[in-house]
């Protein structure tokens, strides 16, 4: 019998809803999941890290789903979300398909390893790892709020070369619509990129997050790739990584199609709204507010873990 069928019941949501509203029909749960997807994706888009980091805690805290199921459903939603993002980036020829495939040679095994580990380790351990990563994200957001890093660092490709770089990549370029010019760049430190990609894949499928939070800084700061290309390439990689991880979760019976359907609809609406709102919101103090939200979520998850909540 699949793991999900044994463990999951929505007892808590009945309890939750009956206590507050006396009676809510089961069909209403669709909308609850869709709203969770919308809110998580909205905040995720505002923070520029995708919605996975909020979807997993929301599903575990509000719907009382086991963390493995929440991660599996979140990964499937990430595939859908990154498909749309990748389509836009590929259409504008921003994605470096060569680089993404090269990095996928380590990120995909990492994703498969992560999902296999997640299916076998206890929920408690997975929750602790998730909370540790959440705290790390909160810390990095606070640091980002204090000092703004220069993401357009000088491309010093001539100083460092590796054999893979020389064989696969020559000088790459993309057309920047804002600058109205072709921007050339040379990729360096491919080996570092390959190693970090493995861990990005591992973490992504272990925790049900996109992995962009690792991919993009590695590409921009270490491999000296322009930020636009890094975001587009990361999005393409996430689509492949999340699919690889999600398929293993499906094998273990940890993906519930109906939860995914409601999530996908909410997440797509949330990411469109979040991206639009991002253009209008002033970024001042936003990182501090989001860091505080992430810390609160971490505390709630830990309280649930120790049966205090």
């Amino acid at each position, binding site marked *: 019998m*699949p793991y*999900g*069928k044994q463990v*999951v*019941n*929505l007892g808590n949501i009945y309890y939750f809803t009956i206590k507050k509203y006396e009676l809510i029909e*089961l*069909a209403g*749960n*669709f909308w609850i*999941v869709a709203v969770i997807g919308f809110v998580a994706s909205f905040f995720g888009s505002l923070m520029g890290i995708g919605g996975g980091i909020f979807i997993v805690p929301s599903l575990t805290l509000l719907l009382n789903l086991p963390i493995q199921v929440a991660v599996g459903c979140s990964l*499937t939603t990430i*595939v*859908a979300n990154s*498909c*749309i993002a*990748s*389509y836009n980036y*590929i*259409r504008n*020829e921003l*994605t470096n*398909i*060569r680089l993404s*495939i*090269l990095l*996928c*040679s380590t990120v*995909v*095994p990492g994703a*498969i390893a992560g999902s296999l580990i997640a299916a076998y380790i206890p929920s408690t351990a997975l929750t602790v790892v998730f909370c540790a990563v959440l705290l790390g994200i909160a810390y990095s957001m606070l640091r980002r709020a204090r000092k703004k890093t220069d993401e357009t660092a000088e491309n010093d490709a001539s100083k460092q070369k590796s054999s893979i770089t020389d*064989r*696969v990549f*020559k000088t*790459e*370029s993309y057309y920047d619509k804002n600058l109205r010019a072709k921007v050339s760049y040379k990729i360096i430190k491919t080996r570092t990129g390959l190693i970090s990609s493995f861990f990005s894949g591992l973490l992504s499928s272990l925790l049900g997050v996109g992995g962009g939070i690792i991919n993009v800084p590695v590409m921009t700061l270490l491999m000296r790739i322009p930020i636009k290309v890094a975001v587009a390439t990361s999005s393409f990689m996430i*689509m*492949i990584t999340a*699919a*690889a*991880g*999600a*398929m*293993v979760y*499906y*094998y273990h*019976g*940890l*993906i*519930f*199609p*109906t*939860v*995914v*359907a*409601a999530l*996908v*609809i909410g997440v*797509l609406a949330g990411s469109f709204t979040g991206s639009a709102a991002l253009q209008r919101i002033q970024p001042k103090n936003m990182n501090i507010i989001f860091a505080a939200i992430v810390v609160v979520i971490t505390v709630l998850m830990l309280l649930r873990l120790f049966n205090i909540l």
Partner: protein
Amino acid sequence: MIKPGLYRLTAGILLALMSVAFFLILAGFILGISRMSNLTGTISLGEIITGIRSFDPVSVIASGIGMLFIIPILLLINAMIYFFKTGDKLLSWITLVVLVFLSLSAFLALS
């Protein structure tokens, strides 16, 4: 430097498959609102095939999810053929390795 042909073809495949996948997920969601009595549970390939015939919401959604999983595999096959045709042997082999790993996951999901 990649020629625009690969980008156009990749974008085309992505749009076509994505549209079908989202249509199936949305259709299943709409069917599910009226009929669904349980949010939980997973479904096997055999159940999906028989379920689609009777417009079972879970089967329709699961086929949409399956379509989402197929997208990266087809995009990689497309890229591998492109790299092979353009004589980029190293990258076509790397793509093949990635494809093997993805197919392994897909095989697990279907088994």
